[in-house]
């Protein structure tokens, strides 16, 4: 499998970043649901700390992914798409990227507003984005939640669209993002 993207397939780096972020976003929803209703405890602190560290990791990976995308060819959308489908796909992809940045930044800002500095796995402490502010904290709790659920919904639409391409339209849209496969139409993934 090629490291870089081709005009036919996503390369190894793009695939790795895509699926890593998928796994981490699922981890984030799981952690958030685990600690959401807990009373204050060391266990809750541990889950929250993990959630923050993973969130910052997603932010870093999203930045890396965007940079890699700009430095690589992008496999084009299939020619079979109608103009509105093309626009919807573009809009959905842009929204996914925006949310991959917005959700962690809202969470980080929310921690700063609460007065709790964010540490990345205990290895280094991130700077506070805003000074302590209770009203802003309350607002950001809601914002972080709404953005996260929006990301969840947009990601599910993205997933359903990919499955439709694979099982209904039977094209290469999903295959070209899967490792250990090749495109039907263009053969190998070079």
């Amino acid at each position, binding site marked *: 499998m090629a490291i870089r993207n081709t005009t036919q397939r996503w390369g190894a780096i793009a695939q790795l970043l895509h699926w890593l972020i998928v796994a981490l976003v699922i981890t984030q929803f799981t952690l958030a649901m685990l600690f959401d209703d807990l009373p204050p*405890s*060391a266990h809750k602190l*541990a889950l929250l*700390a993990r959630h923050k560290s993973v969130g910052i990791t997603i932010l870093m990976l999203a930045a890396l992914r965007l940079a890699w995308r700009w430095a690589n060819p992008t496999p084009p959308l299939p020619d079979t798409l109608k103009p509105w489908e093309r626009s919807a796909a573009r809009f959905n992809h842009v929204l996914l990227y925006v949310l991959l940045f917005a959700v962690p930044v809202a969470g980080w800002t929310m921690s700063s507003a609460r*007065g*709790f*500095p964010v*540490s990345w796995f205990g290895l280094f*402490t991130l700077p506070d984005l805003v000074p302590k502010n209770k009203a802003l904290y309350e607002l950001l709790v809601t914002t972080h939640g709404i953005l996260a659920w929006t990301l969840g919904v947009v990601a599910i639409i993205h997933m359903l669209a990919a499955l439709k391409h694979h099982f209904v339209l039977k094209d290469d849209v999903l295959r070209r993002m899967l490792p250990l496969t090749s495109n039907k139409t263009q053969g190998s993934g070079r």
Partner: protein
Amino acid sequence: MRLLISGALVAAVLALQTVLAQPPAAAPATPATPAATHYVLDPAKSSLDYTFVQAGAANKGRFTRFQVAYDFAPESPAASRLDVTVDINSLDTGDQERDDTLRGADLFAVAKFPQAHFAASQIDRTASGYEAVGKLTIRGVTRDARVPFSFRTATENGAAVGYMSGKTSLRRLDYGVGQGDWKATDQVGNDVIVSFALRLTAR
């Protein structure tokens, strides 16, 4: 020879008894705190802060109510005394939920142990200042503690004042601050840095 040693011993014991029998006033060097100045706290211009690690990041807090009594004899620090009582309920980390958690049974248990107490009956002079040697009690657990500090006196508006400041580190689990799953130190560190900057007024 044995007789000689015994004789010397008897003489020494007798001499010692004579010295000890003398009234304290007659011994000029005895630490009877004649020159000690008694200081009390100026709460408005004093702070007692602490720094702890939570979830990998340094967090700060303070106590807003505490009392200090300091008997300082400049000529004989060994005759000086320091007594500090902290109202644990006055802890303030800037977060209501965290403060309430800290007051709870598994951490400071303020309902049962409302105060922390440091009593130093000896002040040693060190290269950089002083060191209070005494007993620190937190959450009902008493341990030996040495607290280094600097102290300077001044006259302000005709009144004698003293400025005391210092920093020390202690381990919360030595005092049982952290029961149950709070015994774990991965989220809340064991080491706590305590710093103080006090303004004292002479009485």
